[in-house]
């Protein structure tokens, strides 16, 4: 094939390539990249829908404001509390389930299906159903259950209106809904561990616990890192449960960054302030993602 022909072929592929990738790239530009850049820009302005003030560049004023706003700081600390509690608990539960399902027992598929079922439930439906579960008074299901397991020592509580219990209540239903998703990912990771590694470890006289520590955990590391990252990001996206069950209350005990941002833009038309909040949210997600990539890479270098 002569050179001009080769070049024409290359050009042809450029046209086809752009044509095939075009629709998706156009969508990503218009609906993801452009809005993101706009959010970055808006965070440095005073934009408010329907405000008579002219649009102005105000520097980092919105950030100064949100970082001195007790509600936003409360939201940020709530997200951190949610992440630092839910991530370890949910991951441990999912790992436990995956290990139980990976023992080659009969009926594994049935159990796997049951544990995964809540994942196909929309979070808003889960939230509404759990409002009933958390109903105050002895007739509430959670109160009844706790009364049963404490043999009658439990005093009925109004979970969603109790500043100490509202957040743990949201955490519990989030774990219930999400554990199945993680379990499936960890189970897939477990199934990829070569059986020979366990046989070799057993020959070396390693017991169950030692096999788990020296074979299972290191082999599962990338899956665990991924699961922890996804759950942490979900913890910072927390919104549906809060909006439906507590509206951020009582007394800000369950407010979150995204809930505050939605309040700002939706009920107070503060577009710039809400943008600043979502920029902070994005930086948190970025930091988490960076951390995950680093941890995963480390493993590749060692392994």
């Amino acid at each position, binding site marked *: 094939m002569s050179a001009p022909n080769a070049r024409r072929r290359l050009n042809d592929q450029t046209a086809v390539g752009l044509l095939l990738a075009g629709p998706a790239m156009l969508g990503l530009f218009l609906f993801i990249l452009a809005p993101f850049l706009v959010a970055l820009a808006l965070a440095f302005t005073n934009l408010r829908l329907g405000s008579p003030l002219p649009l102005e560049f105000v520097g980092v004023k919105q950030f100064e404001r949100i970082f001195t706003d007790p509600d936003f700081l409360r939201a940020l600390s709530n997200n951190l509390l949610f992440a630092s509690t839910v991530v370890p608990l949910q991951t441990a539960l999912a790992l436990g389930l995956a290990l139980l*399902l990976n023992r080659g027992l009969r009926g594994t598929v049935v*159990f796997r299906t049951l544990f995964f079922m809540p994942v196909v439930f929309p979070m*808003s439906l889960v939230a509404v159903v759990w409002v009933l579960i958390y109903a105050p008074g002895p007739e509430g299901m959670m109160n009844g259950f706790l009364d049963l397991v404490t043999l009658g020592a439990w005093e009925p509580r109004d979970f969603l209106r109790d500043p100490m219990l509202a957040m743990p209540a949201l955490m519990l239903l989030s774990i219930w809904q999400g554990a199945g998703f993680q379990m499936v990912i960890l189970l897939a990771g477990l199934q990829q561990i070569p059986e020979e590694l366990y046989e070799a470890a057993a020959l070396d006289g390693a017991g169950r616990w030692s096999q788990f520590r020296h074979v299972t955990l290191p082999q599962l590391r990338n899956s665990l890192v991924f699961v922890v990252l996804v759950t942490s990001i979900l913890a910072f996206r927390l919104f549906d449960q809060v909006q439906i069950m507590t509206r951020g209350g009582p007394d800000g005990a369950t407010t979150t960054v995204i809930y505050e941002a939605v309040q700002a833009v939706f009920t107070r038309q503060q577009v710039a302030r809400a943008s600043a909040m979502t920029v902070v949210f994005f930086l948190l997600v970025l930091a988490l993602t960076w951390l*995950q990539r680093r941890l995963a890479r480390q493993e590749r270098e060692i392994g």
Partner: protein
Amino acid sequence: MKASRLGRLGSYLALTGLALLFLAPLAMMLAGSLKPNERVLVEAGTLAAFLPVGASLDNYAAVFERTDFLRFLFNSVFITGTIVAAGLIVNALAAYAFARLQWRGRDLLFNLVLALMILPFEAIAVPLFYGASILGLRDTYIVQILPFIANAFSIYLFYSFFIGLPRELEEAASLDGASTLRIFFAVIVPNSKPAFASVAILSFLTWWGSYLWPLLVTIVPEVRPLPVAIASFYTLPPLQWGDILAFGTLMVMPVLAVFLMFQRWFVRGVASSAIKG
């Protein structure tokens, strides 16, 4: 791993106990949806919560009387269905161009796709909402569909799959003089069913339960999807728990049926979301 008899028994006990805890909210929802409204809350704290004593379909009838349930169902199916179907085509075509064709700007654009993968929807919700408001697009289907068709993560999943396909498949067709588009539909698509299934299931799970965006951009029930509809039905007086649970059961039944039929595919799809980082 082989487990001892005692170990097996312990595993079954643990699995059964956990399964009961996982199932309790669902069993309560189903039983409560069949019970007279006033009994649902009263019995929620006892074992009677799981027994549909005095079962009837009255609550289900009430759902259809008090709400436009079928409209919400249609909205959800239409919105999610369009996002998933259009997304499969658009994102798979893009992934194919990235995985197999040589073209100028390819690497730059692909790196952009990888970078956009980490942008969660919430980070762009404010300007999107602002844009939808000034364009007068609130309370439409288009604003609930169009922004979500192109998806960086879907492109990445397709890309990872296409990269692993043997090139011989396409080369034979290419010698026959088939066009790129023809090769894609006649050779690539039939050989990539697992990838299409995974992407379809993952994007379905994402958008079917979507709440924040439709809550922001819709007010009229005519275009509202189920997740927003159940939340607003719950705040609609009088508070009738039986009706709410019937709404919830109706809303989750079709998806649950599809899930139970194709649960292997669901599991595989979710597991595939974890490929590398």
